[in-house]
């Protein structure tokens, strides 16, 4: 536990003090205030739109924060050769595991900040609903998967840009897959259906990580277990790649 805490602490401290993190925090605060004005434009659905717009903005900013932070961190560690120092003192499993947990905690803190910033805005505008809190929980699970994907692609790809594009492409594919599957099941050919079903086995199931109306705590537990298993597979994949790769 002590050994893994090295990478959790290094990751958290390095990320939180980064100018990019501070810029995203500022942007998030600004966006949440702006969302009040955007919601005013939707007459009759003010509360619902305010919640949805806030959540969408937070998701987008978190995604940006995590993808950029993780890929640049791996790229910087490779260029400054600090990774070689780490890997001559700790095993690759600890290094990758610690960094992954560090970024999952970073996502947690960032969402915590956003939630604290959103709550007074929602309460003041009488738009608060309990589902808003559960949405943050599912968003955290989804962002944890993004951390896992970012870890994997940062290890696999030598170029920062390729890693970034790969993560975003996979995230988008995972987001639209459930709807695409519904459409193809009804109107598509057998081959298209098989292909999408195969993809649904590989890509993260974001439909399991969404708060549906009426879903209880069992949905939250299933989401957590699914997320933990998927992260374990991504960590294992990254470990295999880092052990094969030569630095």
């Amino acid at each position, binding site marked *: 536990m*002590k*050994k893994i*805490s*090295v*990478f959790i*602490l*290094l990751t958290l*401290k*390095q990320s939180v*003090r*980064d100018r990019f993190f501070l810029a995203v925090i500022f942007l998030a605060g600004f966006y949440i205030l702006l969302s009040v004005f955007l919601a005013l434009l939707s007459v009759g659905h003010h509360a619902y739109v305010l919640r949805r717009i806030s959540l969408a903005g937070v998701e987008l900013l978190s995604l940006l924060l995590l993808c950029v932070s993780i890929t640049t961190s791996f790229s910087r560690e490779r260029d*400054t*050769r*600090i990774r*070689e*120092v780490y*890997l*001559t*003192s*700790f*095993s690759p499993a600890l290094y990758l595991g610690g960094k992954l947990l560090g970024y999952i905690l970073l996502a947690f803190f960032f969402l915590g900040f956003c939630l604290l910033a959103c709550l007074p805005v929602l309460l003041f505008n009488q738009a608060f609903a309990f589902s808003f809190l559960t949405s943050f929980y599912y968003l955290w699970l989804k962002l944890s998967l993004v951390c896992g994907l970012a870890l994997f692609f940062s290890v696999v790809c030598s170029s920062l840009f390729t890693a970034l594009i790969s993560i975003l492409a996979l995230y988008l594919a995972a987001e639209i897959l459930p709807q695409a599957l519904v459409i193809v099941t009804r109107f598509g050919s057998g081959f298209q259906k098989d292909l999408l079903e195969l993809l649904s086995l590989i890509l993260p199931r974001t439909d399991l990580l969404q708060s549906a109306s009426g879903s209880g705590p069992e949905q939250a537990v299933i989401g957590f277990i699914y997320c933990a298993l998927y992260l374990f597979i991504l960590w294992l994949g990254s470990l295999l790649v880092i052990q094969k790769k*030569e*630095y």
Partner: protein
Amino acid sequence: MPELISLNNLKKSFASVPVLKGISFSLCRGDIFGLLGLNGAGKTTLIKCVLGLLGHDQGRIRFKGRALQAEDIYRQCGFLPENFFPPRNLKGREFLKIMAVGLCFSRNRVEELLALTGMSGAGDKYIRNYSRGMIQRLGICTALLKNPEVLILDEPALGLDPAGQKDIIDLLSLLNSQGKTVFFSSHILSQIEKVCSRAAILDQGLISWQGQIKDLKEKHGARDLEQAFLKQVGQR
């Protein structure tokens, strides 16, 4: 002196281009061993192979007479790479304390090492504000944290001014006198001549000479190591 690390016919290629073509030498306990070579001779590759950061295609690396294990590297080898730069948003002391926790050493060890390297006063500065010399000293502190038996350094004085180079060389000498075995690569031949008990020349993937520096100078009738080195690698 007993052998600490020995290499036997080590070979390594990158995409079928051979870089190390059968390296054999041994590092003895208490040595301060310099590895010399022109750019692209394979010095960094050799160091990375010894540390397990690169796999080798053929040959054996032994530590205290048995096959080198990852655990030996984690516990007994301190490493400072070339152009090393630690996380820039941390303070020097903070970085070392976090590393010390993971390596199961007390925080007092951090203070000892900062004092040893003359970094006590700069420990609370952010690493991004450090000079190249301070970064190298911090790197040596990091390498020494686990109290390793052997210290492996890749170009430790690269990019330093003459005063900085002297400080690093004096520090390596001091560590060696305290019982650490030191193995380092360098382009700065005057450094190697000054401190090394033994040295080896890596030339086009092969060890073209190894032994005591005075023997190399005698062999080529050279007045200093630089002249002897250039004659050995066929540049003069």
